């Protein structure tokens, strides 16, 4: 059975005679599944996400979403960018509003769109700061607005590009819990890029481990067989959690060491 989202033999080369960044990467993601892609920096995992988002065109191969090939960006594959990418001249509400107006301008009335914006701001608990500008709120709050903006597009796939990478540990944990809660409620299909092992194991149904670039490939795929809802504190002692964590660590640090550190 073909997956909901199919990444089909994607090869990416930035210059014609340069070595490829990604080499025939194939991955099938089911509807409602939460998949984390993990690897050392420079392994091309962000490139892979950008290809799925349509922001980059694959040199060879392609991406199929619900049976249709996608090769241009669109709101059905909403992205939460690593550096939040909020427009600084708009308030938080206006940032979400811009996306909602654009995506639902023809299908929803003005009042419905306004309600939908607020509903999504409420989902990430950002109603209180809705009328502030991005430079007036913290990094964690900006990222929550970024998530609200992406969710408000009602995407078929939510793409998270190291969404918590720039945040401190406490804020990160808080946001991870929120994302888990939202995923449980909305059953959105999620593809998340990360380099944080705990984050990958805690959040995902499957972890895709990438080998080091150039010519990066999928080295191993791990099913995370843990019941949901997952609770951060109990997970820390759950043997299956620890086993999954050990397996990813072993892949990243024993078999595919960071080339920068190995040197």
């Amino acid at each position, binding site marked *: 059975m073909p997956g909901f989202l199919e990444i089909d033999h994607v090869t990416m080369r930035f210059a014609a005679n340069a070595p490829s960044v990604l080499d025939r990467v194939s991955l099938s993601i089911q509807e409602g599944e939460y998949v984390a892609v993990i690897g050392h920096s420079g392994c091309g995992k962000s490139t892979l996400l950008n290809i799925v988002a349509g922001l980059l065109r694959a040199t060879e191969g392609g991406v199929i979403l619900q049976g249709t090939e996608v090769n241009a960006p669109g709101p059905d594959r909403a992205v939460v960018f690593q550096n939040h990418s*909020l427009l600084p001249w708009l308030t938080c509400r206006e940032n979400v509003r811009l996306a909602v107006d654009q995506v639902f301008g023809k299908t929803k009335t003005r009042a419905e769109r306004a309600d939908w914006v607020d509903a999504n701001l409420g989902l990430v608990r950002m109603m209180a700061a809705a009328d502030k500008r991005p430079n007036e709120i913290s990094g964690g709050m900006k990222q929550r607005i970024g998530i609200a903006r992406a969710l408000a597009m009602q995407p078929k796939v939510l793409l998270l590009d190291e969404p918590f990478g720039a945040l401190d540990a406490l804020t990160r944990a808080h946001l991870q819990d929120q994302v888990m809660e939202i995923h449980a409620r909305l059953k959105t299909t999620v593809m998340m890029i990360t380099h944080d092992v705990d984050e990958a194991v805690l959040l995902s149904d499957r972890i895709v481990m990438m080998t080091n670039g150039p010519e990066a490939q999928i080295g191993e795929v791990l099913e995370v067989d843990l019941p949901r809802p997952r609770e951060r504190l109990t997970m820390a002692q759950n043997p299956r959690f620890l086993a999954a964590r050990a397996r990813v660590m072993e892949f990243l640090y024993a078999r595919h060491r960071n080339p920068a550190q190995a040197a």
Partner: protein
Amino acid sequence: MSVTLARGTDAVPSITRSRPLSVYVVAARDWLKRSAITVLPLIIMLTLLLGIWQIAADRPSATLPAPSKIWQDSYELIVHPFYIRGGLDRGLGWHLLASLQRVGFGFALSALAGIALGMLVGTSPLAMRGLDPIFQVLRTVPPLAWLPLSLAAFREAQPSAIFVIFITAIWPVIINTAVGVRNVPQDYRNVAAVIQLRGFKYFSRILLPAAAPFIFTGLRIGIGLSWLAIVAAEMLIGGVGIGFFIWDAWNSSNISDIIVALIYVGLVGYMLDRLVALAGRLITRGTSSS
């Protein structure tokens, strides 16, 4: 004196704690103190310069009038900026307004055309290759060099002067807008791509606000150049206007009037600059810091 001072300093902390009104008193006092610190050096400097000028120019052999003589000679001009005695004999305010009107027209046109052309050059590599070399050459032509050509084309003083302002102010607007458009961060482009903002919406919601700080830099340089050019242009075209006023004063050897006019020209130029800077700050609030 010393008693009041001591009482004042003792009383302040207790008042601050007990009554909210005193907060305003303290705030007002702080404000006065701060403005004194900023303004006082200026006042001292001005007094000093005027003093030196007075001493240097207050003798029969001096070619330029001393401040005291300017005050006597041009008292009417300084105190009544808006008198009309018929013909071109009217207050400085009227001359300045006439000049400002010309600058207003010319600058508004150059802002519109400049932003549009800048957007074009900034977004299209083809337009960039075709137009940029032309702009780079034309922008070095001094404003007054355009005047004869402009008079030949328009055959009237008013549109010629406005054209000179237009052609003077447009280059920095074009160039800065183009730079701003080319430097729209990839992050914003990605956001626009994901939500499929295209065409006019992309222009108005992403491109224009992202480039706004650059555009206002161009506008600010442009308005400064306009004001520089208008005085020179009006000296040649005549009619009502501050440039003509200065030239007329020179012809009737009213050196004092010239000096008064120069001070006004400087102050108005400064205000124009502040005005555009303020508009820029209000409109680009938040844009420059992300």
